[in-house]
């Protein structure tokens, strides 16, 4: 994932209005060639609108969109070097699988035999070899998805746009397709732009992710950076689970800060653990992920620098994991409210699931904390 690849899609100050509704509020975005890029956000955040403006289905109200260094302002969807996999797959029900896949080749001057070979190749690529003569309406959801992919990829577009392509599949099928999509993208080397509301899906598949809220990009980063260092509380809350505790800033030195967190005590945080984009006026807040802290038994030792006493409030057993909601001792010190924190533990062999009401110790390191201020 080098950063020197040429830009494939550039959005410059893109705005979209629907009457009074401001759907896209100045999107600046560069998607590089060959990248697996995701637009992630809750429903109504504008991610699908942005995808449709790139595809050419929606006009933009202001700004510019460039694909492969060419302005797309006057280029309609049927002339753009993009193809789309629709949320509903939009498989033509009155045609066979092969006719569906060959649909985009209608205007292609190549001969019948050559086209048939291309169709076979495309179907083989998505694992549907020999399905050509099936009626499209008789396919399962996963097979429809593959036909939609083959139909779009046969045109060798510069960009493949995917609008929530996995949301209609069941969990097993979805996880399988995620892996297949990644492999397929590496194989064809085409730029993929995926729209999803599923943060896990985005983290699994993407090289980079743009998190969108209310028509704006809140953070654009790789999956690991996004998860470990969310730009603000909202992103942190949307991507996975994050615990939030109120904090008091005792002092600042250089870029770092010393803060007091009820329940955790006084910690010193370097600059890279501090996020200054915190628009929701909640005051300074400490955040940490459930898996960054561990429960330790009475006589167990641990290698973590810090330790806190707590009581188990709730236990949620997931088979491979157990979630514990804990009340930290002294957590109510600042404003009288005791916020439970959630800790996740792998259920490895030999470790018993703890019971509600148990007094326990929590081991942690200041390196896993993020300060939002």
């Amino acid at each position, binding site marked *: 994932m080098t950063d020197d690849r040429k830009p494939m899609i550039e959005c410059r100050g893109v705005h979209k209005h629907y009457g009074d509704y401001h759907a896209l509020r100045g999107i600046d975005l560069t998607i590089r060639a060959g990248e697996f890029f995701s637009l992630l956000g809750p429903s109504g955040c504008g991610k699908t609108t942005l995808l449709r403006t790139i595809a050419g289905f929606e006009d933009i109200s202001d700004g510019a969109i460039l694909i492969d260094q060419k302005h797309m302002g006057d280029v309609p969807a*049927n002339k753009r070097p993009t193809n*789309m996999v629709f949320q*509903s797959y939009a498989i033509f029900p*009155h045609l066979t699988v092969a006719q569906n896949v060959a649909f*985009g080749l*209608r205007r292609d001057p190549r001969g019948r035999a050559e086209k048939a070979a291309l169709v076979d190749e495309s179907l083989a690529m998505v694992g549907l070899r020999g399905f050509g003569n099936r009626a499209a*309406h008789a396919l399962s959801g996963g097979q429809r998805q593959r036909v939609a992919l083959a139909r779009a990829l046969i045109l060798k577009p510069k960009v493949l746009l995917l609008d929530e392509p996995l949301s209609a599949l069941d969990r097993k099928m979805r996880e399988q397709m995620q892996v297949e999509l990644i492999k397929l993208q590496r194989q064809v080397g085409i730029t993929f732009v995926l729209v999803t509301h599923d943060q896990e899906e985005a983290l699994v598949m993407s090289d980079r992710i743009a998190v969108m809220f209310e028509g704006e990009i809140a953070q654009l980063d790789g999956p690991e950076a996004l998860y470990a260092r969310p730009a603000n509380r909202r992103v942190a809350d949307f991507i996975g689970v994050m615990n939030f505790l109120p904090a008091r800033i005792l002092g600042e030195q250089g870029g770092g800060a010393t803060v007091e967190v009820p329940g955790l005590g006084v910690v010193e945080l370097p600059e890279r653990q501090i996020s200054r984009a915190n628009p929701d006026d909640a005051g300074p807040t400490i955040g940490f992920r459930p898996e960054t802290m561990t429960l330790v038994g009475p006589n167990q030792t641990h290698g973590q620098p810090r330790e806190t006493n707590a009581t188990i409030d709730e236990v949620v057993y997931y088979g491979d994991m157990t979630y514990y909601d804990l009340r930290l001792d002294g957590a109510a010190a600042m404003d009288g409210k005791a916020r439970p924190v959630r800790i996740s533990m792998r259920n490895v062999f030999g470790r018993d699931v703890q019971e509600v009401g148990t007094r326990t110790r929590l081991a942690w390191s200041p390196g896993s904390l993020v300060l939002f201020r």
Partner: protein
Amino acid sequence: MKGQGRGLQIYALLYLLFLYAPIILLPLFAFNSGTIIAFPLQGFTTDWFSQMWDNATLRTALTNSLIIAVSAAILATCLGIFAARASTRFEFPGKGGMMGFILLPMVLPEIIVAMSLLVVLLGAGVQLSILTVIVGHVLICMPYAIAILSTAFSSLDKSLEEAAYDLGETKWSAFRLVTLPLVMPGIISSLLISFTISLDEFIIAFFLAGNQPTLPTYIFSQLRFPKQIPMIMALGTVLVALSIVLLALGEYFRRRGNARMGGNPTGGFL
């Protein structure tokens, strides 16, 4: 419980008898050699059919009716396609009211429609002919056409047309290659229903046809002459047979279309 079910069965039988007995009488008297419509039947004859075939006025009336019905069906269905597509695909100001007004003739008394049309046409100095009847029939067929076609269009995934467009087709070829074949069962239903409505429509034809006969107005005019009635019975027999064939055909095409697309029904009255 059982006795109750029996009562309902008898009721259903009587009901069907009431509906269809008059229609069963049609062929009975059409092939009866007696000139008076009464039992007992006299003997078998096909004279009434040949008499009907030789009747020049009846042939004119039939030709007129077919021209009117075919034109009205095609026009109403074409206009219906535009309206149904617009109402299911796009949002525009005043859409609800507009669709309401288009569907209104379905419940308006036909005589009112016929009278106001007559007043307008005469006021505008338009010569009454089968053309004016076509205009009137398009007006009353449109609501049915739109009702059928809207169902067909609304059961269609909007992204199908977008997908075709995205794959390089123009807006028109996307419509022709994808949408049209998928709503075809609805279009055939609409054509058949409009044709049937127009063919047996009396009031508008009576008001707007000028001196041109259509089938219903011709039949009405002949009822005054008792000796013509057996021939009308023969005509009725032919029309009933034709309607059954048409409906069966329409249903056959609709079911075939549905089966081809995995069986989601897209409009149709049966």
